[in-house]
């Protein structure tokens, strides 16, 4: 891609690529501020999936015929695109899973049960999504691995000193933290976390479900050992996510699931495993979805993360300014480095009621605990409303949110 010819960021042009954004909801134009839960899909992603299904489809890896060869090329081509996106040293280190959640469960099984020893510990943080918490609890209960929780500061940032304290006894085998909080918007200093983990002999895993959407990711610059993200938040299809891990880790890890495509040879007595990444991809993969993911990666690359983060910074500044002007409204978290995710509570109005009122005006936000129940407890709230931005979010939409919230406040006064 030639950086010189990259068009300037034009949010209206981008919006034109997303058919759903011209829909109305309850008679009002859709204002979609729930992209952190799942993002909308641009036409190139939809088209790539349709084109595959209409013109070039068969099962992959197994067929000795033209359709299968072409489909295999397309499917495998996504590994190259993803490797480039996150600057992975090798395409063979890109494993496709159903979503981030499956990827983390894979690591909890194949690295946690497969490599870690009972008595070792896993460190997570207080601001993890359940996807990066429950699998480690299950590992703890099944395998006798200790689960430690690194604190966050009152501003909603990872407490680095607190993290380091948990590493002192060198029992920690893995530090598994989010790269960006889906509640607070906090971007975690991943390179520092990785360096700290390594200093104490632990590996570092990052849940990039949110970060990969909002920031350029370079797994080598971070020094990560494992990195995960999920396509549906990156403007891609549902049903596919990515686990990247260092080659030597993947090679040492036993497989997660058994079945076709992940084997070397099979007899009733014994089976051998395929090379990475295939060892971790049992059964027919999400073929059409991989093809859609490639289109999504190319779509964000064509816009460029410079433009994306700049747009997001403008939106974020504006949103924080407008929201902090609303009496009784409290934005959760105040991290220095934060992305376009704003969770808030409002005096006298419960988050669900807020969400329903906003919905009536066509404004889609989420309300609840955002799959981060322990974090909500830490913040001392039961639930919150959350507005989150995408590349298609406009200043006018932020204004619509803020204006409507002022009316919500009156309604509940």
């Amino acid at each position, binding site marked *: 891609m030639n950086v010189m010819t990259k068009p300037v960021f034009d949010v209206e042009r981008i919006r034109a690529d997303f058919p759903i954004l011209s829909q109305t909801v309850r008679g009002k134009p859709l204002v979609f501020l729930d992209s952190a839960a799942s993002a909308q899909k641009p036409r190139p992603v939809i088209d790539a999936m349709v084109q595959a299904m209409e013109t070039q489809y068969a099962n992959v890896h197994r067929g000795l015929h033209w359709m299968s060869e072409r489909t295999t090329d397309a499917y495998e081509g996504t590994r190259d695109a993803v490797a480039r996106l996150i600057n992975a040293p090798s395409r063979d280190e890109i494993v496709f899973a159903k979503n981030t959640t499956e990827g983390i469960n894979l690591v909890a099984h194949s690295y946690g049960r497969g490599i870690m020893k009972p008595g070792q510990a896993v460190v997570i943080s207080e601001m993890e999504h359940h996807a990066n918490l429950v699998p480690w609890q299950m590992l703890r209960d099944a395998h006798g691995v200790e689960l430690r929780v690194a604190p966050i500061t009152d501003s909603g940032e990872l407490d680095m000193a607190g993290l380091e304290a948990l590493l002192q006894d060198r029992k920690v085998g893995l530090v598994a933290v989010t790269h960006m909080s889906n509640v607070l918007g906090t971007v975690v200093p991943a390179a520092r976390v990785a360096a700290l983990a390594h200093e104490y002999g632990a590996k570092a895993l990052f849940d990039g479900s949110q970060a990969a959407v909002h920031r350029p990711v370079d797994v080598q610059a971070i020094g990560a050992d494992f990195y995960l993200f999920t396509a549906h938040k990156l403007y891609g299809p549902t049903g596919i996510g990515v686990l990247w891990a260092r080659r030597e880790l993947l090679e040492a890890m036993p497989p997660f699931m058994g079945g076709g495509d992940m084997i070397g040879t099979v007899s009733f007595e014994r089976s051998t495993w395929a090379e990475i990444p295939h060892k971790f991809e049992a059964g027919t993969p999400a073929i059409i979805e991989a093809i859609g993911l490639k289109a999504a990666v190319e779509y964000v690359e064509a816009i460029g993360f410079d433009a994306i983060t700049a747009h997001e910074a403008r939106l974020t500044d504006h949103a924080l300014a407008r929201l902090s002007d609303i009496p009784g409204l409290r934005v959760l978290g105040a991290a220095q480095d934060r992305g376009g995710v704003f969770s808030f509570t409002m005096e006298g109005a419960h*988050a*669900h*009621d807020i969400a329903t009122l906003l919905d*009536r*005006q066509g404004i889609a936000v989420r309300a609840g605990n955002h799959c981060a*129940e322990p974090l*909500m407890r830490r913040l001392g709230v039961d639930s919150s409303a959350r507005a989150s931005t995408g590349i298609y979010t406009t200043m006018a939409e932020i204004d619509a949110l803020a204006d409507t919230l002022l009316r919500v406040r009156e*309604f509940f006064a």
Partner: protein
Amino acid sequence: MFDDLRDLYSAEIRAHGRTPAHGQRPAVFDASAKGDNPMCGDRVQVFVRRDDGRVAEAGFEARGCEITVASADLMCEAVRGQPVGHIRALSDQVAAMARTGRCEACDEALRDVHPLSAVHEYPSRVKCVTLPWHALLAALHGEKETTSE
């Protein structure tokens, strides 16, 4: 701006939602159960005292939205004096009402609950209405926890 929401957030419902009459643990109760809505974090704990096969008193503690609290409060009102064996029928009627918006065949005891039928336009809020009823049934059946799924 929110005119079409005045049904759901009627003065009646809002009063029950903000200053519930039964929103506390009764001094005496013989059964209790919690109800959780795992998708959003709402929680209701219902307490009930039975007397001679009837619900003598019900109360609740909740952390939840106005609709949940209103539903819990209206429920406590509605079930007082009802035969224990009749509660499931009432609960089923409330659930159907919340889903469909209609309650032609509803029990007379549910009269004050009717305004909550406006929730049927907001499917994800239906659970807010039914959660307290699930907790009540669980309490009467000796369970400790339930969910609104």
